[in-house]
């Protein structure tokens, strides 16, 4: 397929039940896998923001944005390339406390990877790291040989370099 690339999709919606179902259905119908998804509140009261990542062509993403915006409770949807956004993912590692005591290599990894310990007890400790997907992946590989007990990564969150005029839009629509 021509020129598939990763797009970050930002969707501002009313905070209402069922909207997740409608949005995911749009991707499902077109057989497009959502690589990651994050839903949170936004800078505007009672408005939610979806951030999701898909690998598609530009033509596809344009059409999908049109279908998303058609949903009654969607205020506005945007798509962006990596260059247009500042983005982060976050992850947690659970590792045995033993490994921390046994060698100081882990300590070095923690320091150089800019991750931090957010919880520790006699059995395990939890390491948190925010960064790009690549940074997180790199850390994963370094820690892998020390035995990762659990690993979890969040969806991408992203802030666009361009302005998104949701507040003005909301005023206009009213």
């Amino acid at each position, binding site marked *: 397929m021509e020129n598939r690339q990763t797009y970050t999709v930002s969707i501002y919606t009313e905070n209402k039940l*069922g909207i997740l*179902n409608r949005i995911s259905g749009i991707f499902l119908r077109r057989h497009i896998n959502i690589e990651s998804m994050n839903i949170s509140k936004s800078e505007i009261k009672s408005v939610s923001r979806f951030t999701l990542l898909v690998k598609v062509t530009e033509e596809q993403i344009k059409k999908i944005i049109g279908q998303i*915006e058609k949903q*009654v409770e969607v205020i506005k949807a945007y798509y962006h390339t990596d260059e247009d956004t500042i983005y982060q993912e976050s992850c947690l590692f659970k590792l045995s406390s033993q490994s921390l005591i046994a060698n100081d290599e882990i300590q070095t990894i923690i320091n150089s990877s800019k991750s931090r310990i957010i919880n520790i007890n006699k059995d395990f400790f939890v390491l948190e790291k925010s960064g790009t997907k690549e940074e997180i992946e790199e850390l994963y590989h370094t820690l892998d040989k020390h035995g990762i007990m659990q690993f979890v990564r969040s969806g991408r969150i992203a802030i666009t370099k361009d302005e998104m005029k949701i507040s003005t839009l909301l005023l206009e*629509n009213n």
Partner: protein
Amino acid sequence: MTTKTQTQSNGASKQKLHISGAEAVVKCLLEEGADLIYGYPGGAIMPVYDELYKYEDKINHVLTRHEQGATHAAQGFARATGKVGVAIATSGPGATNLITGIADAQIDSTPLVCITGQVASHLLGSDAFQETDIVGISTPVTKWNYQITKASEIPEIFAKAFYIAKSGRPGPVLIDITKDAQFEMFDFEYEKCTSVRSYKAKPDVSLDKVKEAAELINSAKKPMIVFGQGVILGQAEEEFKAFIEKANIPSAWTILGLSALPTAHELNVGMVGMHGNYAPNVLTNQCDLLIAVGMRFDDRVTGDLNRYAKQAKVIHFEIDPAEIDKNVKADVAVLGDVKQTLADILPLINKNSREAWLNEFAELDKIEYEKVQKEDLYPTKDGLTMAEVLKEINIASGGDAIIVSDVGQHQMFACRYAKFNKTKSNITSGGLGTMGFALPASIGAKMGMPDREVVMIAGDGGYQMNIQELGTILQTKAAVKIVVLNNEFLGMVRQWQQLFFDRRYASTEMTNPDFVAIAKGYSIDAKKVTKREDLASSVKEMMDSKDAYFLEVCVEKENNVFPMIPTGASVSDIRLE
């Protein structure tokens, strides 16, 4: 038994009523002017039905024989009247039976409000008796849906539902109401909805785009219009006519655009698409400007997109921004309600006669007439054709009837040959192609427009998919004229089997019952025609009848619909035989 207590709201004329959720549902319907509705009761919606009993003098609730019939009847009502259709069902199986009609309404942009009962809110998610996640099920096929669990939500949600269903590009909305919310008492107050914060019914019109479009039209030598239901939904028939007449642009229609422009209009050049007319299909690939008005370039219209009007510039008049560039790339997209945009463009376009270009359509028409229509309409063989039945209906109705067709060969014959003088007169399932649509839809159309003649045309297959609605006719006395064109086959599928599957007629032959006896069993006057000499008089007898009437016409078993664009072919490769 009265539960009404009235409390005065602070001095204003509005009164707060302390009523149940169920009564509020009925009040909301009355506020929205929905006094003719279709449905089927059951446990989870009984409180609402109990209120409907109380309000019998104000709301006519029609008991269909199946919930699918209720949605199709509501669709027929909506399509014939231009108002919002309403269908009601109970939870679980009642709700799921609505789905086909909802999906049909969604793809054909028909405004519907569907109301379903739901199990009590404390049982939600527990697999309770007759619990179905109807909000989940209907999400992909509704414009909007909502589950009400508190009576106090009812007025706002109903107001919003009606507004969303009918505004912008219309569509179906579903409201699911838990049983406890129907019983709950609250202070009712109703206010109509005029806007929803996150929803923009109509895009802003850009005058620059209107100007750009006008310039393209003025410089075009061979422009052609394809119009769809947008003209009807936007009530823009007059604006459309003025527009095409000023610039003398040949105008072809999609199956849902049919009747927006009178058949006899000299700029009406016929139907586009798979079984459309020869001239507009062939000339789609010769025009220098294709102007799409309120249509969405369905694949049944365009055939192979890579060979569709590639030589032409494209202008797309459309209310739904998501339709722009979806299938065909537009050089100029004129967003907005066509009633407005066509009025805006009128003063900007030049008068033009375009005689030579219009003649090209006329020449190709002659070819189609000689090769196809003549034998369809005036057959030299003994067997009756579907087209000649349509011809007789045209004669008897004078083109003033509402024609409701089902899905199959007869549908294509009906759309190709029925004549229309008035708008909103062609009612058919276009986008979904739902067999079983016509009988209930014709009931809705007739009840919505009692002064108009409503003629339903179905095949022996589709007629039997909702034949139980004869019971609704028996009970309501809706004077629908039912025409079944019986070829003892699922004709359209058989045609494909003949053309593309080496005549292997897998499961398309039908052994049919005595249709006349069945109609008579429902106290409907009925007649069967097998010979040509009886056709005209029988059609006339049917049309003269003041009551419902059933006419079975035994037509040739293996007739085909031509012209035809085989799937995947280009529109200009349309076959005449």
